[in-house]
């Protein structure tokens, strides 16, 4: 079963949805508690997050640093804008490569869905070109066939 969806919306948004078999409160905590974040927000095997700062309050700072243990690594920084406990997080983040990328505005919703949770992550990029740089718009209308194929692959 393909649980993840990844789509574009308008010119500047990217929307990801994913269902979890856990209550919204648990999914929310897994997104705001550094002890939990460090267990899953890692990417490929072999990467770890030696620094994980997540101050879950309005204006609170976010800083994640990753390393592959072989000298490779990078970090993101961000700030919380709004928090509705167990339902919704709004923050901005940028990646340092080392120059900072344009701010990415991210709203993460945790909606109860039966006994589980539907997470909806909605990113807003500053402009269409930034989004195009970040993400192929190929999954929009022109590539429906590709998208169907993709769904079948995963």
């Amino acid at each position: 079963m393909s649980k993840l969806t990844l789509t574009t919306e308008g010119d500047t948004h990217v929307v990801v949805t994913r269902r979890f078999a856990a209550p919204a409160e648990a999914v929310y905590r897994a997104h705001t508690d550094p002890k939990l974040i460090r267990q899953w927000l890692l990417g490929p095997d072999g990467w770890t997050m030696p620094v994980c700062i997540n101050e879950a309050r309005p204006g609170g700072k976010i800083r994640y640093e990753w390393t592959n243990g072989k000298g490779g690594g990078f970090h993101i920084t961000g700030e919380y804008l709004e928090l509705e406990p167990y339902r919704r997080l709004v923050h901005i983040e940028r990646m340092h490569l080392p120059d900072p990328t344009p701010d990415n505005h991210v709203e993460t919703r945790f909606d109860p869905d039966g006994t589980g949770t539907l997470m909806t992550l909605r990113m807003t990029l500053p402009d269409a070109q930034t989004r195009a740089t970040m993400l192929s718009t190929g999954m929009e209308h022109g590539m429906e066939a590709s998208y169907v194929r993709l769904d079948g692959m995963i």
Partner: protein
Amino acid sequence: MPLTISSLLYKLLPMRVHPDLDAAFAALADPTRRALLTRLAKGEATVMELAEPFAMTQPAISQHLKVLEDAGLVVQRIDGTRRPRRLAKAGTEAIDQWLAMLRNALEKNYDRLDTVLATMEQPTKKRGGKR
């Protein structure tokens, strides 16, 4: 290239699954060109047929098609005096491949989160019970 979605997106890009990917993404950043691809996804078409739904001249459409061709997304065929265009398999497959990598990387994080959630306590009873 782990991580949050934005870092994933930025980090994957330089990996260059396919040398023409940058050109392909740039070509896709334009709504007219996406609309042209939408039309071509239904089958090959001539410039005249492609231009018909647009409030644009044929030369303008041809210019967009050239960008798509240079990006490896569209090819043309010679059929007598006609030059029908169609989607280029290699270019669209490169994008598919890139998107699949992106989805896989995201799924990996969320699969890991599934495991974390499964081991968490009843979230309504904070800090009680065993870990």
